C-alpha cells in the first residue's frame, strides 16, 4: 500500500513538472518585467504589483483539480488506478498533495520576488510572520478550491451523459451551500478559540484613509472557520467515496502511465 502510494505520487509529480516549470517561468518573467520598470514606474507600485500573481492561485487550483482527474480519463489510466489495491481517498489525497506542493512552490517564488522588491521600495522589511501567515492562508484556500473542483468533476463522472454540465452545476451549488450553510455547525463548535493574524499590509490602506492609528490585527473567527473546513472535509470524503465506488470508467485500451 505504502509503495503503491509512493509510485502513484511519484507519477503525479512527474506529470506536474511541466506545469510547475511553466508557472515558475511566468512568475520570474513578471518579476523581471517589474524589475526593468523600477525606474520608470513608482517603486511602491512595483512592490504592490509583485504580489499580483497570487490572485491566480485559486484559479490554478480550480483548473488543476479538474485537469488532473480529467487526464486520467482522457488517457484511460483511471481504469488501471482503480484496479490497484488502493482506496479512493488515497488517489484523491495524492492529487491534492500534488496541487498543494505546486501551490507552495508557486507561493515561495512569488514571495522571493516580493522580498526583493520590498528591499527596494520599503524603509522597513516585511515582517516574516506576515509572509508565513499569508502563505499558509493562500495554500489553504487553494486546497479548498481544489477539493471542490475535484468533487464536482467526480460527480460529473458518475453520469454517462452531460458530465461537464453536471460538474459545473455541482461546483456552483455545492460551493454556495457550503458558504451559506456551514455556519449551522457554529453553535456546536463554540469551544474553538478565535485567533489573530498580522495584517501589516493593511497599514497602507489605513494611511490612505487617513487613520494611521487603526489596528492591524485581523481576527479569525475560530468556530466559523472550523465549520467551513469540516464541510470541505466532508465533500472530500464524499468525492473519494464516489471515485472508489460509482464513477464510470472508460473502456478500451489502457495506458499504464502511473507506473
Amino acid at each position, binding site marked *: 500500500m505504502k509503495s503503491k502510494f509512493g509510485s502513484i505520487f511519484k507519477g503525479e509529480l512527474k506529470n506536474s513538472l511541466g506545469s510547475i516549470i511553466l508557472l515558475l517561468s511566468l512568475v520570474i518573467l513578471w518579476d523581471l518585467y517589474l524589475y526593468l520598470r523600477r525606474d520608470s514606474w513608482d517603486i511602491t507600485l512595483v512592490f504592490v504589483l509583485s504580489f499580483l500573481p497570487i490572485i491566480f492561485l485559486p484559479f490554478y487550483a480550480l483548473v488543476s483539480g479538474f485537469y488532473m482527474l480529467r487526464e486520467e480519463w482522457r488517457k484511460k489510466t483511471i481504469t488501471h488506478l482503480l484496479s490497484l489495491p488502493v482506496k479512493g481517498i488515497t488517489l484523491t489525497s495524492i492529487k491534492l498533495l500534488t496541487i498543494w506542493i505546486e501551490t507552495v512552490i508557486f507561493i515561495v517564488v512569488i514571495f522571493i520576488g516580493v522580498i526583493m522588491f520590498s528591499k527596494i521600495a520599503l524603509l522597513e522589511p516585511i515582517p516574516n510572520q506576515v509572509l508565513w501567515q499569508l502563505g499558509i492562508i493562500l495554500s489553504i484556500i487553494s486546497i479548498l478550491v481544489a477539493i471542490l473542483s475535484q468533487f464536482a468533476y467526480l*460527480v460529473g463522472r*458518475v*453520469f*454517462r451523459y452531460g458530465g461537464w454540465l*453536471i460538474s459545473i*452545476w*455541482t461546483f456552483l*451549488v*455545492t460551493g*454556495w*451551500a457550503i*458558504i*451559506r450553510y456551514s*455556519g449551522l455547525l*457554529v*453553535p456546536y463548535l463554540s469551544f474553538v478559540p478565535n485567533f489573530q493574524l498580522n*495584517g501589516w499590509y*493593511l497599514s497602507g490602506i*489605513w494611511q490612505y*484613509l*487617513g*487613520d494611521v*492609528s*487603526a*489596528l*492591524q*490585527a*485581523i*481576527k*479569525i*473567527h475560530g468556530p*466559523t*472557520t472550523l465549520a*467551513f473546513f469540516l464541510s470541505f472535509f466532508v465533500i472530500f470524503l464524499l468525492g473519494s467515496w*464516489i471515485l472508489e*465506488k*460509482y464513477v464510470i470508467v472508460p473502456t478500451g485500451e489502457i495506458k499504464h502511465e502511473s507506473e
Partner: protein
Amino acid sequence: MKASKVLLLLLIGLTFLFIFDYSRGGIHKIGPQLSQIIILPAPADNIKALDDDWFGK
C-alpha cells in the same frame, strides 16, 4: 437506486433550496457570512465595523 439518480435528486434539491433562499434574499447574506470568518479591523468612522455575532441573530 442508481448513484447517478441519487446525485441528480440531491442536485435538484440543492437547486430548489438555492431558488427558495434567493427569493428570500439569502444571496445577500453570503458576504456577511464570509466576513464572519475574517473580521477585518476597521478604522474609526471610516468603515462600519462588521457584526461579530451574525449567526446568533
